[in-house]
């Protein structure tokens, strides 16, 4: 065996081993903590203030918020130079720099800048402080109304088909197939309609909001197509039975077609009234 190659391999192994061993020494351990209190210029603690910390070298950033006592804590920070920004509703952003050493628990109390506050403008805390619950209510409202809108739009397809087939189902020369197709499509229309209506009715109401604009017409038309969507199938069933018994459609059932047309027209107008907007 040639001793030179074996020495070379041994040397390479040692270098590789040392390299592996040196990793923990060179790697920056994210074990530092920065914490503190955020206060306003009057030394009052500020809840929900946003703390944004950015490593000057790596540009990595972390964000947190103060709790109800104005306290914040950022853990697992890599040692280094950081830029710390604090901001909150009604105050201007304050930025400062801090050097974080490895394995330390540092305290950095921050004061929000701002000569003037929202209170100086005469706004009450109730006006200036929102809540996650209020936002969740708005989000739920928008979400439910979007579903209402989508189902409502989809419902126009069976609605139009039902109206078109209605001409064949109620005429002099009708077939039971036409009537059943009309009945089936009408049922789908009604089901989708009431599903869509459910999302509109159950969407959370936002207090203190006056109804303005085209939504007023949209809501007003619901007082036509809503009862129409109940009445139309009732009259339709009566007309269906009369036709199936070989009778001419008579009595109140003869209003089925007219009620359906008015309902469909009101429904179409209702969609159009809110279509050209977002």
């Amino acid at each position: 065996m040639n001793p030179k190659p074996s020495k070379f391999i041994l040397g390479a192994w040692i270098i590789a081993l040392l390299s592996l061993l040196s990793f923990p020494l060179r790697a920056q351990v994210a074990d530092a903590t920065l914490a503190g209190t955020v206060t306003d210029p009057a030394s009052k603690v500020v809840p929900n203030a946003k703390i944004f910390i950015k490593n000057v070298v790596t540009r990595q950033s972390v964000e947190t918020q103060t709790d109800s006592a104005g306290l914040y804590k950022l853990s697992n920070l890599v040692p280094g130079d950081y830029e710390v920004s604090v901001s909150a509703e009604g105050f201007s952003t304050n930025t400062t720099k801090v050097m974080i050493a490895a394995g330390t628990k540092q305290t950095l109390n921050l004061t929000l800048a701002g000569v003037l506050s929202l209170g100086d403008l005469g706004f009450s805390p109730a006006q200036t402080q929102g809540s996650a619950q209020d936002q969740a209510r708005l989000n739920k409202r928008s979400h439910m109304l979007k579903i209402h809108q989508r189902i409502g739009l989809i419902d126009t397809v069976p609605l139009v088909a039902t109206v078109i087939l209605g001409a064949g189902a109620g005429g002099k020369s009708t077939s039971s197939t036409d009537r059943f197709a009309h009945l089936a499509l009408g049922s789908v229309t009604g089901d989708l309609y009431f599903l869509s209506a459910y999302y509109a009715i159950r969407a959370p109401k936002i207090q203190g909001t006056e109804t303005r604009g085209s939504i007023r017409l949209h809501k007003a038309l619901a007082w036509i197509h809503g009862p129409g969507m109940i009445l139309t199938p009732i009259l339709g069933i009566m007309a269906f039975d009369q036709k199936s018994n070989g009778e001419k459609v008579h009595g109140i059932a003869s209003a089925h077609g007219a009620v359906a047309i008015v309902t469909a027209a009101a429904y179409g107008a209702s969609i159009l009234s809110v279509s050209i907007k977002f």
Partner: protein
Amino acid sequence: MVFFLLLGIPIFAQTDSQWVLEQSTLTYHVTHPLHQVDGVSHAARGKGVCHAGQCDFLIAVPVKTFDSGDSNRDLHMLQVTRGGQFPMVTVRTRLPESASASATIHADLEIQFAGQTAKYDQVLFQQKSQGNEIRITGTIPAILTDFKIDPPSLLTVAVKNEMPVRVEMTWQRQK
């Protein structure tokens, strides 16, 4: 008497002055290929405090006071701009006291909106002085994504990211 009046001049000159927002019209403009929307608010309140030749201004307006003529759209805007959680838009700026004498102002604005802070540098405003009052007009070139707002959509097409806000304000100086 004249002596005391002369003595009084430097004292008055050092006295801090204040500016109070008397009237305002703020109008945001949203553009969609099918539609243009303007939302107007007259509910802004503002104050400016001057000291040592510098004036700090704060202007604030509740998000929900913007009226686009349709309450459903306004509530949708309130939702997308996170107005439930962050109900106010605030604008801060610092200007030299001497700025009130010129016809134009270039202001560095710090705007808090939708829980985010964005800075708009050197925004141009025109101003007209009349006695103790100053009328300021201009447009803030606001961008929705500066505030991490997803532009709302109509028929799956989103509105433009730019949402310029037209500002018309009348300020009154108070000693």
